[in-house]
C-alpha cells in the first residue's frame, strides 16, 4: 500500500544516525508497539517487545527481534511492573527503552531507574516529566514562562470549603481536576457549589486510588472551547521546534475520539501565536524529545495552557502526515544525542489529516465492549493509514484501554478527507464486539462536523439529540 510517510522518509539513511542505540526495548503493547517496531526496523535497530498473558497472540509480539513474557494480564503485574520491564531490557541486552504512551511513559521514578541502570530512556528527562506531571506545578511554571493559563486556583485546593471560595471568585461552571490526573480521570465539571462539594470528596478519593495523590485544583470551565494542541520537539543541544497543531475537540468522557490538522477553526494569526507560546513554554523548561502542549481555545480565539504531555501522543500520525516526518525516528535520534534533523524553516505542512480512534465500545452509551474480533476486514485505500493492535481472530480483553486501531486519513483538503473517510468506513466490517464506527459515520455526515464548526461539546450535544 502506498504510504506518504515512509516514502518521504527514504531521505534518512541508516549510516547518518548516531550509533549508540542498537537495541531498543518497547515497554508497551498493541498498536503503539507495532508502530515503534516499524521505525526501528527501518533504521536497522534490533527490538525487544514485552507482552502479558492476555496479549500473547497479538500481532506485535511476533514482529520484534525478541519477545519477552512479562507477567499476568493486569497492567500493574506486567506493563507497569518497573522491575520486570528493567530486567527484560537488561537480559536482552537492550541499550534503550521506548515507553510509547500511557503505562510508564510519564513515570519520573521509572525514568530514573532506567538511567541508573545505564540505559537510555527515549523521552524527556525525569525532572521535566515530574514537573509537568504535577498539573499544579505545571500551571505555575507556564504562568512564569509567560504562557496564558486557564483562570483558576494558584496552587492546590485544600478542602471543599476553600474550593467553594475559589470557585465563587472565578465564577461557575468550574472544572475540578486532580493534580496528578490524566486521561480524563479525576476530572469533573461543576456548575454550582452543591455539585462542587459533592464532587470534591469523590474525585479526591478516585485521584488517590488512581494516581497516589489526592491533591486537587480548580479551573474555570470553558464550555464552548476547542481543544487544540501543539506538537513540539527539543534536542540536547538546546534546539526547539514546533510541528504545528492538532485539533482534538471531538471527545467523549474527556477522552479524544477524532483529531485533525489543520484545525478548521483557528485563524493564521492565532495559530502563529499558539505555536510561539508552545515553543516559549518548551524553551522555558529546556525540553528534550517529543512533547505536546495542550491548550483550550475559547470562542474568541483566546487560548490557555491546559497541560503538557511529555511523551509521544496517540494522535502523532496526524502530524506525521502533515509534515512528512517520522516522529518516532526523531525521538530515537534525539535520544541518541543527535541534533534535531530539521530547523523550523525547513518544516513544511501540507494538506489535511484526520485520525479516528477505533474503540471497542457501544457507539451510543460509550460502554466498553470486550470480546473476540471474529471479523475485522476493510478495503485498503490510498491515503488511509491503519495503525492497529489486533487482527481478525484476536480477543479484545478488558484489561487495557478500548482502542483497537487508529485510522488516519489524509488528502489535499478537509472536504476530501471527510469524503474518503466516509467511503473507507463503509468498507469496514467488525463483528464479535461493538465499535464506534457508527459514531464516525454519523459525524462524517453531520453538518456541524462537515462545516468544522464544532467544540468539545459535539458528542454531548449529539447524545442529547438522540435521547
Amino acid at each position: 500500500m502506498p504510504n506518504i510517510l515512509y516514502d518521504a522518509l527514504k531521505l534518512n539513511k541508516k549510516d547518518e544516525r548516531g550509533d549508540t542505540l542498537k537495541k531498543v526495548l518497547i515497554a508497551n503493547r498493541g498498536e503503539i508497539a507495532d508502530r515503534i517496531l516499524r521505525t526501528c526496523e527501518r533504521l536497522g535497530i534490533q527490538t525487544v517487545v514485552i507482552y502479558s498473558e492476555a496479549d500473547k497472540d497479538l500481532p506485535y509480539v511476533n514482529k520484534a527481534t525478541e519477545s519477552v513474557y512479562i507477567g499476568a494480564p493486569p497492567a500493574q503485574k506486567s506493563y507497569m511492573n518497573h522491575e520486570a520491564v528493567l530486567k527484560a531490557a537488561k537480559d536482552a541486552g537492550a541499550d534503550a527503552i521506548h515507553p510509547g504512551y500511557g503505562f510508564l511513559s510519564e513515570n519520573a521514578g521509572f525514568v530514573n531507574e532506567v538511567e541508573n541502570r545505564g540505559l537510555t530512556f527515549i523521552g524527556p528527562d525525569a525532572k521535566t516529566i515530574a514537573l509537568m506531571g504535577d498539573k499544579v506545578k505545571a500551571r505555575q511554571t507556564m504562568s512564569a514562562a509567560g504562557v496564558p493559563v486557564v483562570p483558576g486556583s494558584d496552587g492546590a485546593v485544600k478542602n471543599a470549603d476553600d474550593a467553594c471560595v475559589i470557585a465563587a471568585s472565578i465564577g461557575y461552571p468550574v472544572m475540578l481536576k486532580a493534580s496528578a490526573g490524566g486521561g480524563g480521570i479525576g476530572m469533573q465539571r461543576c456548575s454550582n457549589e452543591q455539585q462542587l462539594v459533592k464532587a470534591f470528596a469523590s474525585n479526591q478519593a478516585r485521584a488517590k486510588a488512581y494516581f497516589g495523590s489526592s491533591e486537587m485544583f480548580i479551573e474555570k470551565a470553558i464550555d464552548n472551547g476547542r481543544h487544540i494542541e501543539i506538537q513540539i520537539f527539543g534536542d540536547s543541544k538546546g534546539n526547539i521546534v514546533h510541528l504545528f497543531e492538532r485539533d482534538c475537540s471531538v471527545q467523549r468522557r474527556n477522552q479524544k475520539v477524532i483529531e485533525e490538522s489543520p484545525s478548521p477553526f483557528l485563524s493564521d494569526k492565532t495559530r502563529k501565536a499558539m505555536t510561539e507560546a508552545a515553543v516559549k513554554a518548551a524553551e522555558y523548561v529546556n525540553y528534550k524529545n517529543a512533547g505536546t502542549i495542550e491548550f483550550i481555545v475559547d470562542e474568541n480565539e483566546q487560548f490557555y495552557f491546559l497541560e503538557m504531555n511529555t511523551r509521544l501522543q496517540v494522535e502523532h500520525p496526524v502530524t506525521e502526515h502533515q509534515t512528512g516526518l517520522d516522529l518516532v525516528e526523531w525521538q530515537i535520534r534525539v535520544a541518541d544525542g543527535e541534533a534535531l534533523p530539521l530547523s523550523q524553516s525547513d518544516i513544511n505542512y501540507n494538506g489535511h489529516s484526520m485520525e479516528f480512534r477505533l474503540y471497542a465500545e457501544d457507539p451510543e452509551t460509550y460502554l466498553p465492549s470486550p470480546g473476540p474480533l471474529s471479523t475485522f476486514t476493510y478495503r485498503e485505500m490510498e491515503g488511509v493509514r491503519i495503525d492497529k493492535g489486533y487482527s481478525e481472530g484476536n480477543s479484545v480483553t478488558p484489561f487495557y484501554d478500548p482502542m483497537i486501531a487508529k485510522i488516519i486519513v489524509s488528502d489535499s483538503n478537509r472536504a476530501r478527507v471527510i469524503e474518503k473517510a466516509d467511503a473507507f468506513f463503509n468498507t469496514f466490517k467488525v463483528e464479535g464486539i461493538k465499535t464506534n464506527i457508527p459514531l464516525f459515520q454519523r459525524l462524517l455526515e453531520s453538518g456541524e462536523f462537515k462545516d468544522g464548526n464544532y467544540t468539545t461539546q459535539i458528542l454531548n450535544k449529539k447524545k442529547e439529540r438522540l435521547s
Partner: protein
Amino acid sequence: MKQIDAAMAGTVLSVLVKKGDEVKAGDQVAMLESMKMEIPVEAVEDGVVSDVKVDMGDFINEGDTLIVMD
C-alpha cells in the same frame, strides 16, 4: 430468586452490599472496571441480598452472577 449478572467482562472494584441488605431497584450494588472504565452495577428490582458471589479484585466474565437476591 433474582440475580444480578455482569453485563461485561472485567474486574470487581468494589461490592457495596452484603448478605441481608435490602436493596431497591436503581441502587448501586457494585463497581466493575473494564477497559480502564468504572462501570456501576445497579439492581434492576427490589429485594434482599441472599448471597454475594464475588470479592473485590475478582476477574469476572460477561454473564457471571455477582449477587443473588430473594
